[in-house]
């Protein structure tokens, strides 16, 4: 269903809902993966992002998102300068990603201290985004919900253990997806929640021995 607020909105810094607002949200999601402002980010722009991104402020929008600015924050205009002041080392390059990707796609490698993450995200229209890869695992995340992402050994009982923790903390799961590279290897788990997970819930999930690389990403849309 299409909400009238999807049509009259978002409030955003121009000039393009896909190249600016959506790009900012991809940057915000990348920031969420390392739980704060990265020290360094390598941004690779693909397709239309590479071709017309500069004129649309796509680079500034992604930098702004990495700094934690929302799509309606006027500081997006100066975000490249602000990133430099803040000590966020940024590089932008144009690339041609292999495989099937939406024309408005970026791959972002972020590092903050000893945390590192690589995401591929697309801006799919009207400011909406879809994160399609995290650390090489295929995912489908819209950023419209607080999201939990973690990697786990592919063994029985993980989903039950995690959903028990979430239920105990009163968290409602809006959607859940698990994908793995091969049987018995590692799988990526993605939970979209109605509210952001509490620190108690995160602690309990982290203590499950098969779980690693737990990230809690705030909603970006």
């Amino acid at each position, binding site marked *: 269903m299409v909400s009238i607020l999807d049509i009259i909105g978002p*409030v955003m810094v121009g000039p393009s809902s896909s190249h600016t607002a959506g790009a900012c949200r991809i940057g915000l999601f990348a920031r969420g993966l390392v739980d704060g402002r990265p020290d360094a980010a390598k941004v690779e722009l693909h397709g239309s992002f590479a071709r017309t991104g500069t004129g*649309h402020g796509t680079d500034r929008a992604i930098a702004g998102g990495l700094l934690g600015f929302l799509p309606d924050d006027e500081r997006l205009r100066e975000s490249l300068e602000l990133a430099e002041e803040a000590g966020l080392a940024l590089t932008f390059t144009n690339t041609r990603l292999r495989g099937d990707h939406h024309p408005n796609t970026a791959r972002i490698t972020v590092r903050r201290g000893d945390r590192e993450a690589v995401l591929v995200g697309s801006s799919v229209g*009207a400011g909406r985004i879809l994160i399609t890869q995290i650390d090489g695992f295929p995912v489908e995340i819209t950023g419209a919900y607080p999201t939990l992402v973690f990697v786990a050994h592919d063994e029985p009982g993980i989903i039950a253990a995690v959903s028990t923790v979430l239920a105990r903390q009163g968290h409602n799961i809006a959607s859940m997806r698990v994908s793995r590279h091969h049987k018995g290897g590692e799988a990526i788990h993605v939970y979209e929640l109605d509210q952001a997970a509490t620190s108690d819930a995160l602690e309990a999930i982290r203590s499950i021995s098969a779980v690693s690389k737990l990230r809690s990403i705030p909603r970006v849309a």
Partner: protein
Amino acid sequence: MFESLVEAVEQAEARRISLGELALEGEAEEGLRSREEIEGSLLRALVVMRQAVARGLAGDLKSVSGLVGGDAAKLNRPVGPLAGTVFTDVLASALAVQEVNAAMGVIVAAPTAGGAGVLPGLLLGLAKHRPVPDVMLVKALATAGLVGAVVAVRASLSGAEGGCQAETGAAAGMAAAAGVELLGGSPTEAAHAVALTMQGTLGLVCDPLGGLVEVPCVYRNATGAAIALAGIEMSLAGIRFPIPVDEVIDTMGEIGRTMDVRYRETAGGGLAATPTGRRLAKERLVQLRGKRQ
């Protein structure tokens, strides 16, 4: 919420309520947000639209590439045959918002950033000539939202998918319905205004120089708002478009689906592919790339 504007109009007429009221009720019934929250979001949109019009009319903005800016202010003191009328204020307001957008200012995507000038241009241009309370403008925005939602489902709101008819064309249809409601017209008159407006934007291509939301987008927002004014004027005069509005919207979708890719935001055809269009785009993009390094 609604997949047919014809059905929405039937319901609104049967219940003797406006399309805006119907849209607000329907949205609240979805249960995601309360009526208060929905009206609050639309009021915030209205405030941002007003600020954008004022910002653009100040006349000192330049777009990111430098290709556009400062034209809205030229209509502050118009000299043409329609000087001092609603018409020039609608044009000026639409240009103003789109110039703000091109300069990375804050706007409300309605339905997209590329078509963001049409709706506020029309509503705030009208409101300049007949003071209306914010609550009525909020309801008019809800009406526009309903029309846009139907277009999103039946056709498209993306220039990359359907050309400019899906962006400024859809925005003009939305603005026409909102304008009729603001002027006290009926839901039926609103629907005919949408049809009379969108028949005039069918086939409109998306051909921005260098792929940037600047030329012709800024000007096309103004002409989009002008076409919406024409649709409103004809509908309120009692003119009825013979093809039902849903079918006009479907036609826009069908034309979009068969439109050559050169005319869908790729800068491969239309004005973008003219000798001057190519030259300007090349000069500006080279400068911008230089800035980034």
